[in-house]
């Protein structure tokens, strides 16, 4: 296996995605393996994200690797005005792999071009977050037994939500049907609808978050509707309670339905949903550990079993 960076979910073919899902499954059965013995891995978080960093660092620790790095730009050399390139050139002298999160879009792509070791993108601004997408795919695969022919219903902020855009592109390999539920101001952008059309993927748009829409879904992918995304605050006031999932809304849903959310949530999933067996967002986050273990091994060219 060759070493390679992961910058965007679009870097992966359908075969590579399936292979990563199989590896994630294997790591879930046994997450503690010392395959990173003797390796040093950098986690460079130019923007803080405790959730993502802890998931990556747990993945490395459970594989027996060691970690160096920083958890926000204030403590890093970039706060002294050092360029990203210079930081990467320094760090890649010391480590076997760089995991980085950055507030600027395209930062991971650029880092992967200048770095002598592979780079895994742990989020670059509003652009890409491929390990989030892999954990979403693994969660869907695990709960549905397949990725093929599913009804994926996305709810909330479909305009700015990078997780839904990446998930849409990744799922395009697997013959999905999409339902997009969003207020007018936060509708799925034209380019992604065009992408569906070009790939013969049926999609339906809804303004109402109705039980009719919920009842046909296999996956309900919820996102945050944030006040600062609205140009028209009247519109925000009108819709802010429309895209909230309550437990009673799941009464007529399919038995295999699972509710996903990239977390953290604000109020878009009521707490009474948490105890419903169809609520899957906490396990979803846990799946991130296995998905990231699989991705780290792929980036380093380490074949397990």
């Amino acid at each position: 296996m060759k070493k390679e960076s992961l910058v965007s979910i679009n870097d992966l073919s359908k075969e590579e995605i399936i292979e990563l899902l199989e590896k994630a499954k294997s790591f879930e059965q046994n997450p503690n393996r010392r395959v990173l013995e003797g390796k040093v891995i950098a986690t460079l978080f130019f923007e803080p994200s405790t959730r993502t960093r802890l998931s990556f660092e747990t993945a490395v620790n459970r594989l027996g690797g060691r970690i160096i790095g920083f958890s926000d730009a204030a403590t890093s050399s970039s706060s002294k005005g050092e360029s990203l390139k210079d930081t990467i050139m320094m760090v890649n002298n010391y480590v076997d792999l760089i995991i980085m999160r950055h507030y600027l879009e395209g930062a991971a792509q650029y880092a992967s071009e200048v770095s002598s070791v592979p780079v895994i993108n742990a989020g670059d601004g509003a652009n890409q977050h491929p390990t989030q997408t892999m954990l979403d795919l693994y969660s869907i695969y695990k709960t549905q037994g397949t990725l093929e022919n599913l009804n994926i219903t996305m709810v909330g902020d479909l305009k700015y939500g990078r997780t839904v855009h990446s998930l849409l592109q990744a799922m395009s390999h697997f013959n999905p049907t999409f339902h997009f539920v969003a207020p007018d101001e936060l509708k799925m952008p034209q380019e992604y609808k065009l992408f569906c059309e070009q790939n013969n993927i049926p999609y339906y748009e809804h303004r109402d978050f109705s039980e009719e829409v919920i009842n046909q879904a296999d996956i309900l992918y919820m996102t945050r509707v944030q006040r600062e995304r609205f140009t028209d605050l009247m519109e925000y006031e009108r819709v802010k309670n429309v895209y909230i999932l309550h437990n009673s809304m799941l009464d007529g849903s399919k038995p295999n339905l699972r509710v996903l959310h990239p977390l953290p949530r604000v109020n878009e999933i009521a707490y009474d949903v948490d105890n419903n067996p169809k609520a899957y967002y906490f396990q979803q986050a846990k799946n991130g550990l296995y998905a990231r273990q699989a991705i780290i091994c792929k980036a380093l060219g380490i074949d397990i079993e």
Partner: protein
Amino acid sequence: MTTAKKELAVAALENGTVIDRIPSEQLFKVVSMLSLDTIPNSITIGNNLSSKKIGAKGIIKIANHFFKDEEINKIALIAPDATINVIHNYEVVEKYHITLHDTLRGIIRCNNPKCISNNEPMETVFHVTRREPLEVTCRYCHRSMKAHEIEIL
């Protein structure tokens, strides 16, 4: 004698390059894009000349200077119909249309302020994702820009 040949004769260019059919409003942008202000050679610039094909046109004649493909092709962004005449010994020995390459390096500024290319001393890279009408996409942040949004570095 063709019209082109008559015009060329005016400047009596013995050896060099003539860039013809530049839209008048883009002429001085082309001059700066090619950094002609830094070339010591003799340069003749004509503007607002009549052209059947593009209305008012500009023309640039540079003595004893020949462009590499990657130097000259970038002007296709603002002067897609421009033609290049290579002159040797008062004769046009080569005449061709410029074409925009699929990848444009260090030519365009990304209009996304949160793009890494606007915050790091690095070369921008754009891919031509559509030609008619023109659309380019940033390699780094994936922002797409149409012709009127393109800012030349």
